[in-house]
C-alpha cells in the first residue's frame, strides 16, 4: 500500500468515526489486507496528519481513548451556532463532586460529603454515571458496603485529556506546622501546637496520609 493511500484511509477513518480511535483500532482496518501497515507506520501517518492540521480549523488530538479530529477552541463561538441548544452547564456541586472523585478516587459518597460539608444529591451521582464520567470501581468494606467511585476514560476524552496527569494540580495544603509554628488563630489564647495535617501531594496522583486522613 502506498503511503499516500494509507494516509488517506486513516484520515478518512478518523474523520468519519464518531469516537476516538486508537492505533489498534486503526490497525484492524487493514486486517484483511495482504500488506498490513505496521504500528509505527500508522503512528508516522498520524504525526503527518497532525502537522497538516496546522493553521486549520480542526486538529487531530490525542485523548485518553485514542485520536480524534476535533474543532479548535478558537472557532467554537461560531461553530456552536450550528446547534440550537446550548451545551449543558454543570453546577458547582456537580463539578466539586466530580473533582473529588477524580482526585481522590476511589472514594465513597460519604467521603465526598465529608469534604464538601454537605450531602451529595443522588442526582449528581446519577448524572455523572450516565455521562460515563465516573464508574463504580468497587465497594468499601465497611458497613453498608458503599460504592467506591473512580473516573473513566470517557471523562478524560470529554475534557480533551490524555491522562489524569494533565489535570490541574490541587493546590498544596499549607503546612500549619512549618509556616506557622506559633500560629495565632486569631484567638485570645495562642495555640502553640497544631494538628499534624501530614499531607503529601503531587499533581495528578494524590496521596494523603496523616491523622486527619483516616479514610480506609
Amino acid at each position, binding site marked *: 500500500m502506498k503511503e499516500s493511500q494509507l494516509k488517506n484511509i486513516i484520515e478518512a477513518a478518523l474523520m468519519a468515526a*464518531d469516537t476516538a480511535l486508537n492505533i489498534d483500532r486503526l490497525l484492524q482496518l487493514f486486517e484483511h489486507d495482504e500488506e498490513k501497515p505496521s504500528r509505527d507506520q500508522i503512528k508516522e501517518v498520524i504525526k503527518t496528519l497532525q502537522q497538516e492540521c496546522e493553521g486549520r480549523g480542526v486538529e487531530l488530538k490525542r485523548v485518553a481513548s485514542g485520536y480524534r479530529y476535533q*474543532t479548535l477552541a478558537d472557532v*467554537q463561538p461560531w461553530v456552536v451556532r450550528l446547534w440550537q441548544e446550548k*451545551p449543558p452547564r454543570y453546577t458547582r456541586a456537580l463539578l*466539586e463532586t466530580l473533582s473529588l472523585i477524580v482526585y481522590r478516587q476511589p472514594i465513597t459518597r460519604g467521603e465526598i460529603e465529608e*469534604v464538601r460539608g454537605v450531602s451529595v444529591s443522588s442526582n449528581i451521582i446519577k448524572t455523572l454515571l450516565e455521562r460515563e464520567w465516573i464508574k463504580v470501581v468497587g465497594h468499601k468494606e465497611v458497613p453498608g458496603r458503599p460504592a467506591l467511585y473512580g473516573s473513566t476514560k470517557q471523562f478524560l476524552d470529554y475534557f*480533551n485529556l490524555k491522562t489524569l496527569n494533565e489535570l490541574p494540580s490541587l*493546590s498544596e495544603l499549607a503546612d500549619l506546622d512549618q509556616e506557622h509554628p506559633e*500560629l495565632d*488563630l486569631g484567638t485570645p489564647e495562642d495555640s502553640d501546637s497544631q494538628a499534624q495535617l501530614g499531607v503529601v501531594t503531587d499533581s495528578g496522583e494524590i496521596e494523603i496520609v496523616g491523622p486527619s486522613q483516616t479514610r480506609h
Partner: protein
Amino acid sequence: MTDNENTFQDNLQGELPFAVVKGEPMTVPPEDLYIPPDALEIFLDAFEGPLDLLLYLIKRQNLDILSLPVFQITQQYMSYIELMKEIRLELAAEYLVMAAMLAEIKSRLLLPRPVEEDDEDDPRAELIRRLQEYERFKKVAEEINEIPRMHRDTFGVSVIQAEYQHERPQPTVGLKDVIAAFQEVMQRAKMFASHHIDREPLSVRERMSRILTMLNVEDFVEFNRFYNVEEGRSGVIVTFLAMLELIKEHVIELVQSEPYAPIYIKPAVKGPVEEELL
C-alpha cells in the same frame, strides 16, 4: 454562655463591633454582606454548604484562612444562621452542624484552657483543615470547569461517508436452531391448546351463559356463589375467565360497597344481550 448570647444579640443590633478586621473594629457589615431577608433563600442557594459560606465570609474580609479569627467569623456565621431562623427558613442541617461546631470553638476560647490538650481534638485546627481541604477542591473544580470541553469548546468531526453499498452482515443461523425453535413453539402450542381442548366440558362460553342464567333469576348475586368447590381448580378458573369475559363485554358489573366488603355481580343491561348469548 449568656455572655455570648448577649454579645451575639448586640452584634445583630450593630451596637458592638460587628467584626474586628486586622485590628479595626467594624460596626456595620460590609455592604456586600448585607442580605435582604427575603433574598436569604437565594443567598443560601448560592453556597455549596457551610464550608462555602465560611470561605465566603473569610474572603470578603481578605483573611488568610491560617490566621482565621475564629471568634469573629463565628459571630458572623451565627448571625446569618440567626437571620435564617428569623424568616423561619428551613435550615439545612449542615449549616446547623457547622453552627454547633463554631459555637463549640467559641465556648472553648472563652473557657480557661486545660493544660494538656490533645491537638487532634482542637476544633479550630479541625475547622481550618476542613476549610482548606474544601477550598482546594472548590478551586480545582473551577479549574476543571475551564478545561476545554467537548460540545462546549470543541466538537467532534463527523464526516459523512461516501455513498457506498456496504453489505450489512447477515446473521448466521444453523438448521438446528430452526428445528429447536419449531420444537419449542410446538410444545408451547400444545400446552396452549390443552387448555382449550381438554377442558372442553368447562368451556368458558358455556359458563358465561350459566352466570347470566343465574343473574336472570336474581338480580344481585354474591361473587362467591358462582364458584363451585367440587369443580376444582379448573372449574374456578373457567368461572373466573367467564366473569372477566362478561365484564369485558359489558354484560355484567361488579359491585362492592366498601373495601373488603363482599363483591356482588349484577347484570349491566337486561334483555337482548343475554338472549344473544343463550
